[in-house]
């Protein structure tokens, strides 16, 4: 399939990838279960991979082998990156589950104080998956952007329109993913602990930390040595699509058709130097700084409680309202009174989104198969006489048609 085919194959893969990327991350945003959120985000990343592969198929269909090879490399690079950072994120979510016995974000919070290593690794994984420099996700998304933009060179109006739109979808996905992981990290690891468990959690064992550390280092290395990595991937993509020499010098990748280049390592180094310069500058202008510690502003109420913090549901509420056509949110409020309407006994508030695919595609399918199965089950009654009868009938039928 990757070896070529008509134009519409590539377009189909591109559209499926774009839809999958956006819907995956949109459902990830609404999830308050840490592991389910990561699972939905896998759907998004596979969509991004398909964008690269779809672009590759399009180029192949028009005989642009070098560009096809570049786009396939973007897809393969993202597969590699996704393996590393999603592995890292699932391991750290697993550590949280191990220490807390819950995956529900609304019960976490403040874990960065009690589980410093796990939090650091989850942060590295989040920055990588949001495709922020200098970590690895950025390189593969950048390559995907480049291949989608190069789609404008294809002599077909449809492709010229669809491929930059694919880029816009990728940008939307990136922004949604950033919101999603700000929520995942910020609500679970920062702020005040939202439950007793979160207060008393303990850091996981060194062997678990080591496993996460290796993947975290790999996230950084895959990010700052894109040239080396693309040289490793290049033989695989050129085997299918003909050669493409991505001129790369360990830390820098350069696309020779356009002269666009990228070096996350250089960005990282510059940022560190600039930060040191700022510290020096502040020291000169402001003199030696002594930090004063105090409680967060509590609006004059004697003490701030964890319940006053922003919740995971609250964080994504504006997004739920913007995309309500997709989420189809429902809410129920039931109030029970002691004396109507003045004395309220309790208020129940329930808010949920409609899981469209589960409700309208999977559930009917499952129901249909169940019904069919219960009809077929009549055949298997458990009576030996009936089975002997089946054999007899089969024999007779075979004899009649066999003759």
């Amino acid at each position: 399939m990757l070896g070529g085919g008509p134009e519409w194959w590539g377009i189909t893969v591109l559209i499926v990838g774009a839809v999958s990327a956006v819907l995956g991350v949109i459902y990830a945003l609404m999830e308050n279960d840490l592991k389910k959120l990561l699972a939905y985000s896998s759907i998004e990343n596979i969509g991004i991979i398909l964008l690269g592969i779809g672009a590759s198929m399009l180029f192949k269909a028009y005989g642009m082998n070098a560009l096809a090879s570049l786009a396939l490399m973007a897809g393969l690079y993202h597969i590699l990156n996704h393996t590393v950072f999603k592995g890292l994120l699932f391991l750290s979510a697993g550590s949280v589950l191990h220490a807390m016995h819950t995956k529900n974000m609304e019960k976490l919070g403040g874990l960065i104080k009690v589980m410093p290593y796990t939090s650091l690794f989850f942060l590295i994984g989040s920055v990588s998956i949001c495709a922020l420099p200098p970590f690895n996700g950025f390189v593969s998304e950048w390559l995907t952007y480049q291949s989608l933009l190069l789609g404008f060179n294809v002599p077909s109006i449809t492709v010229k329109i669809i491929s930059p739109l694919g880029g816009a979808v990728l940008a939307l996905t990136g922004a949604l993913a950033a919101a999603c992981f700000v929520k995942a990290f910020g609500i679970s690891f920062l702020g005040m602990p939202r439950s007793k468990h979160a207060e008393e959690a303990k850091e996981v064992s060194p062997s678990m930390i080591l496993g996460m550390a290796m993947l975290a280092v790999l996230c950084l290395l895959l990010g700052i040595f894109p040239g080396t990595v693309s040289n490793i991937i290049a033989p695989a993509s050129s085997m299918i699509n003909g050669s493409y020499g991505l001129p790369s010098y360990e830390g820098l990748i350069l696309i020779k058709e356009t002269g666009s280049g990228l070096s996350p390592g250089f960005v990282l180094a510059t940022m560190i130097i600039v930060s040191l310069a700022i510290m020096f500058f502040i020291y000169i202008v402001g003199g030696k700084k002594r930090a004063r510690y105090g409680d967060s502003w509590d609006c004059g109420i004697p003490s701030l409680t964890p319940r006053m913090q922003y919740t995971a549901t609250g964080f994504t509420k504006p997004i739920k309202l913007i995309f309500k056509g997709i989420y189809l949110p429902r809410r129920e409020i039931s109030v029970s009174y002691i004396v109507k309407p003045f004395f309220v006994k309790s208020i129940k508030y329930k808010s949920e989104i409609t899981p469209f695919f589960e409700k309208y595609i999977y559930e009917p399918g499952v129901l249909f198969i169940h019904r069919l199965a219960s009809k077929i089950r009549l055949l298997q009654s458990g009576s030996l006489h009936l089975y002997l009868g089946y054999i007899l009938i089969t024999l007779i039928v075979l004899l009649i048609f066999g003759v």
Partner: protein
Amino acid sequence: MEYFQFLIIIIFAPLVNGIIKKFKANMQGRQGPGIFQPYYDLIRLFKKELVISNISSWIFRVTPYIVFSSTLVATMMVPVITDKVLFGNMADIIALIYILALGRFFMALAGLDAGTAFGGEGSSREMTVAILVEPAMMLSLFTAAISAGSTNLSNIVNSSASLYTRKFKRLPLHTIPHPCPLRLYSCNNRRNRQDSRR
């Protein structure tokens, strides 16, 4: 020249901000602060003491450095008075957006770090606005990138500058309204050079 450009941007950016504020105030019939006000504000802010919440973690302490340094790195990528930049062929328009996004990511995290409702609200708002703005901004940048055939900022500026000089050789370029001031600067620059050669 490109080192000079970086310094010029850093030194004059607050002044531009001050002039815009003054202009806005005059448009609304107000006196407004002086155009050097942003400099005074910056000096005052740099001298301020640190007050840190007990609830917050190291994220809150590193965020200012990440936001500031990512903004400065972005500055090094943007050509303003010359078509060359410090980052050379690494000055990429997509990288620019994502470096700024890195700052925004950490700013939103710092908002959640202090554990108050205000911080959470700000951080939620920031990410929501980013979702609405980012695709539109990317599409408009793609327009420039596609017409230049490259996402490299120097190449984009060069190609649009040559386009303008070819089309509007005799027109006063300052009068042409254009959404991207970056282009206007560069084509003025290019035009002046050509004029002096003639």
